[in-house]
């Protein structure tokens, strides 16, 4: 056991392999350090944490903030190891009581949201409990191979999930020619190909798309007969939930029909980027509520300070307008919890004196990522 309980200040100076840990439970902080190279087992870490916080008798979940500011769980040796090794330089650990954490608020953007929104959670709608099936639950999907059962084995249908608007999709397409079997023999036909991947982009990190893959469909629409610009526009218009069907240039990693297991990454096997990639099995997709409609991006509607118009010649004036204005994410139905753009919009509007914002959330409008926004 290589645990060390030095004070962090001292530690910084003479032990570079140590990782400073700042652990937070409620309003309390504890600081300690871990060895970056030999972090040890999760179980020991858990014991250490509850010991440090003097909460030995409570059931807690432990999470940490990754480099993107996302709150990710620490619940086994692997992710504990990952957490320690990726700490740069400080590992921020968040501890929650198990019942409070029940709402599964891990995921992209969840940390920042939590910071602002803790107060509201008690009023928030009670969510139905999630199915707990293994590890994938605690990760957010980045991409998935879908429709393995209906596609030819030579094709691959990849779905890219874009979380928030910040992360680029990160690939380029070009014109090219591909060879088709025609009645009169082989025929060269124009096609659209992936020409380049942006390093660190979403497309590269999934490992499911590669340079020179031929794009056959975009969100179910064949690209044959469409120009490069048309295909570009189609992809961008669908960028929040992009489903591309490709014919991979490398046909060796194809999904084997019947096994129901995704063949994993294509030729790209960059493990550095796979930190937040989880090539999901088709089974994962079934876990999600049918989110076909979740690509209906909600438009943000801000209500101005605007009560009912005072109607002349009406002695009792209508009830005064509710103070302040409202913002809501528009778009009914479950699975619509994208507050990111709303945030940006709201914050950009705060400068405008006409807008004083307070937003009670319409029930049911927020799911999946937990509580809503209050400013």
């Amino acid at each position, binding site marked *: 056991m290589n645990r060390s309980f030095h004070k962090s200040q001292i530690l910084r100076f003479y032990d570079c392999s140590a990782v400073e840990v700042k652990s937070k439970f409620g309003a309390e902080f504890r600081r300690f350090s871990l060895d970056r190279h030999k972090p040890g087992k999760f179980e020991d870490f858990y014991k250490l944490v509850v010991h440090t916080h003097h909460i030995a008798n409570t059931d807690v979940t432990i999470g940490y903030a990754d480099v993107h500011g996302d709150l990710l769980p620490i619940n086994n040796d692997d992710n504990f190891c990952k957490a320690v090794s990726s700490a740069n330089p400080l590992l921020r650990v968040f501890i929650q009581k198990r019942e409070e954490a029940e709402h599964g608020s891990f995921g992209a953007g969840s940390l920042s949201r939590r910071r602002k929104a803790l107060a509201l959670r008690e009023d928030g709608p009670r969510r139905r409990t999630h199915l707990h099936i293994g590890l994938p639950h605690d990760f957010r999907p980045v991409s998935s191979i*879908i*429709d393995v059962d*209906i596609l030819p084995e030579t094709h691959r249908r990849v779905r890219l999930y*874009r979380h928030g608007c910040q992360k*680029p*999709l*990160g*690939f*380029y*397409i*070009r*014109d*090219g*020619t591909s060879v088709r079997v025609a009645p009169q023999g082989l025929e*060269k*036909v*124009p096609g659209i190909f992936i*020409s*380049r991947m*942006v390093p660190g982009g979403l*497309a590269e990190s999934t490992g499911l798309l590669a340079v020179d893959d031929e794009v056959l469909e975009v*969100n*179910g*629409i064949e*690209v044959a*007969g469409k*120009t*490069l*610009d*048309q295909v570009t*526009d*189609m*992809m*961008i*218009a669908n*960028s*929040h939930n992009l*489903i591309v069907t490709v014919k991979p240039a490398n046909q060796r990693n194809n999904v084997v029909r019947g096994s129901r297991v995704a063949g994993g990454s294509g030729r790209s096997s960059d493990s550095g980027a796979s930190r937040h990639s989880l090539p999901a099995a088709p089974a994962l997709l079934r876990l999600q509520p*049918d989110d*076909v409609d979740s690509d*209906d*991006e*909600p*438009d*943000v*509607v*801000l*209500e*101005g*300070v*605007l009560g*009912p*118009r005072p109607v002349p010649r009406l002695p009792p004036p209508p009830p005064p307008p509710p103070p302040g204005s409202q913002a809501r994410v*528009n*778009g*009914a139905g479950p699975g619509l919890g*994208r507050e990111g753009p709303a945030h*940006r919009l709201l914050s*950009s*509007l705060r400068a405008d004196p006409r807008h004083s914002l307070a937003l009670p959330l319409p029930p049911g409008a927020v799911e999946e990522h937990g509580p809503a926004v209050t400013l």
Partner: protein
Amino acid sequence: MMKFRFRRQGADPQREKLKQELFAFNKTVEHGFPNQPSALAFDSELRIMAIGTRSGAVKIYGAPGVEFTGLHRDTATVTQMHFLPGQGRLLTLLDDSSLHLWEIVHHHGCAHLEEALSFQPPSRPGFDSASGPLSLARVTVVLLVAAGDMAALGTEGGSVFFLDVPTLTLLEGQTLAPDEVLRSVPDDYRCGKALGPVESLQGHLQDPTRILIGYSRGLLVIWNQAAQCADRVFLGNQQLESLCWERSGRTLVSSHSDGSYAVWSVDAGDSPMTQPTVTTTPYGPFPCKAINKILWRNCESGDHFIIFSGGMPRASYGDRHCVSVLRAETLVTLDFTSCIIDFFTVHSTRPEDEFDEPQALAVLLEEELVVLDLQTPGWPAVPAPYLAPLHSSAITCSAHVANVPAKLWARIVSAGEQQSPQPASSTLSWPITGGRNLAQEPSQRGLLLTGHEDGTVRFWDASGVALRPLYKLSTAGLFQTDCEHADSLAQATEDDWPPFRKVGCFDPYSDDPRLGVQKVALCKYTAQMVVAGTAGQVLVLELSDVPSEQAVSVASVDLLQDREGFTWKGHERLSPRTGPLPWPAGFQPRVLVQCLPPAAVTAVTLHAEWSLVAFGTSHGFGLFDYQRRSPVLARCTLHPNDSLAMEGPLSRVKSLKKSLRQSFRRIRKSRVSGKKRATSATSKLQEANAQLAEQACPHDVEMTPVQRRIEPRSADDSLSGVVRCLYFADTFLRDAAHHGPTMWAGTNSGSVFAYALEVPAAAAGSEKRAERAVEAVLGKEVQLMHRAPVVAIAVLDGRGRPLPEPYEASRDLAQAPDMQGGHAVLIASEEQFKVFTLPKVSAKTKFKLTAHEGCRVRKVALATFASVACEDYAETCLACLTNLGDVHVFSVPGLRPQVHYACIRKEDISGIASCVFTRHGQGFYLISPSEFERFSLSARNITEPLCSLDISWPQDTTRASYRLRESPKLSQANGTPGIVLAPQSRNGSPDPGHSRRADTPEPPEAMLSPMSVDSATSADTTLDTTGDVTVEDVKDFLGSSEESEKNLRNLAEDEARACSILIK
């Protein structure tokens, strides 16, 4: 799952039938002046005129409304055209030396133009070398002899060939070689030199056997075709340009390359004449340019007209485009602004008449047609009822106003008449009067407004086939521009010799690019209009029947709203003239609002009932109460990250770029809407395959391919603050119980702002409202998550119909909107259409066009489509034009795709940018700087030429077998279906008022009572009528052009789309 999602709905046969009754795509007529004309012909018997263009189009014009269009299959310049007099047939010569015979044929009472025969001279026959004198390789001139049965072809080699016109076959053995002519020429003239090309062939009016041949070297020969000998020989020594044979045949006049003309007398003696009677160099003594064409016309009064083009002193006026008209001592040098293509006189051609008595002179210039009345002293110009030079200053925007009330129409017409007073003495009306217009009187008056670069707005009568100028509004007089002094100086220094006279209205030079008109809106009930320009000027005008002198109140609105860190580096705002200014009758300015910073106005809208005008630029939008003359609202839409707009150089760069582009377009005229050629799809495919086979496999190609980055639209793209559309509506914004005035604004970054307006009610009985301030409160703000630019906004009433225009409902001109049911707002972005409920803005229906088709929306309008089968059935639909040039129609408010058609080539970005939809399912777009193509999406509301021509020649049916193809109209000029006169269903009925569909038994009133078209639903609104080429457009264009070089697939695709109309 996926399969289910993307499956298309099955076709409902009933709906399909209804769609066929509602929608039909036709390109009906081309308005304006043909681009790049190259040839002119006139049939004085039928009184019709033909214009040929460099793209191979042939257009025939008669009386207003009589128009025929044809297109040669090859894109070759039409160099000459000759009418077979009285026959309605036209012989055209292309610059590839092929001859084509066109004829006007009647189908079921309506005439149209068809190519009957063509003749390609044997270019390199085995026995005849190309350089030999007998080669027919290059035809220089054509003369029709013997009442059009035979044609003489003069060639570059100096030979004259003869051609049988009815069959277009060469008459062997009659060929007149230069050697034969040289036999009758004295030896000392021969001196071993060739005679040169045949420059001119002239026939004798009374004696068809005699032909006057002029050779380039100067030799003139009167050849007797019957006797096969030279009657007379004139040994000219000056290089010949053109010849004219006087009516009686006694006098010849020849024009020469040194700017002189010579008159020869035919009567004197038998010996070859060596000296002309008179030689004159009209603009001597200094070296002059050639006289390209000369006409001699005699009059009963004894003297004669000599009309010639060119001949100007080379050094001082060599660059002028002049036609000189000389009669006795009177010389007028008509000074035109563009090149002279050709000219003719309208005169008597009956052989029994002794005198020509020219009535009119028609001059075809590169940019316009000018007709002068030669019978009235002073030779005034006759206003043309068609062929209007739309581009007299470059068109910067356009708008269409449908159903103009008769009263306003009359006022505009009278204002236009006062503007260009007809000389009372001029009795001559338009001299080209051939044919009869069978189209009925237009059911409603349609006004097309074009804004121009020089700050003018032109009003055109777009009701019928002929686009007639009505009135011209100039806004330049309100502003001080630097160019005025220079102008007056230039005029003062002008000499009075030569006696120049400026003729024509084509004036491509703008005084100040800031004057350019960007947006126009007209309220047809109050005759108020708003004109917005490049320097942020927003001008509210009102129609007045009397001239007045008054000051214009000026206000400025700061759209930046104290946004920090901004410096405008673009142009200054225009400085208005102060004090009372005289205004002629017509639209007179009342209020001038200037936006700060003075960026170009990108959106404008007017609500005359509320006396409000809203305007937007790339920085924000403002609302102005022009009754109280006070600003109501200003809102900055700039995104803090939009550094480009914040720093300001953008607008300068853009406007400079734009004006440069426009200048180039004008000067070089390089951008012509290409003509679509019918090539079989299979050959295209083979071509594409061949091309692809030539290319190496993409893997081993060294060159970097064109590639596109797939990145979602981010918020901090530049230009995100540009206000794209503004809209006024009386609807429910606050709550579902009370409706009230609202204003909507949409930006380039997908934001929509909705303001509730507090407009004080008008006092009873007066149109003026109480003097209380209008207030605007921000009601809703919608951020479309896909962040695409908002192209248009419209509010739909409880029945799903668009709200009527201001005053329409209150004056009982439209059905009042349903204020009971829930209103909805339709927001059209470049990528999607969405309908939201009001007042709670929640999404109801949507259509994601870009996600499905990969195209982006450029223009959108709500239009009423009336059924051809059922008189009073009409639907309001959303018509949209995409960046690929396709027109889509969607149902409203269901947003279901109905039909789509390929309309404009996607490379034609200015065509796409200039498109304007009308309220009844028609549209206009520019196919060249000077021509609007009119198209129709409605199966019922079609404006197309329907005309007949009284022609007299024996039409033998056997000749039909000679016809190359039955209907050239499928590939008309600019890919236009042209005059689709007779769908197979016309049933032989000569009455064009009858239904176009034979299978629908329909009372003829269906088209004869077209008021129902208008009154059924007048609640359609032309949402956006911009003529702006945006940066996006250019990006599209650049991208697609480089791409198309790489890949022919697009071509094949276009081809496929052109011939199949997909009905989904």
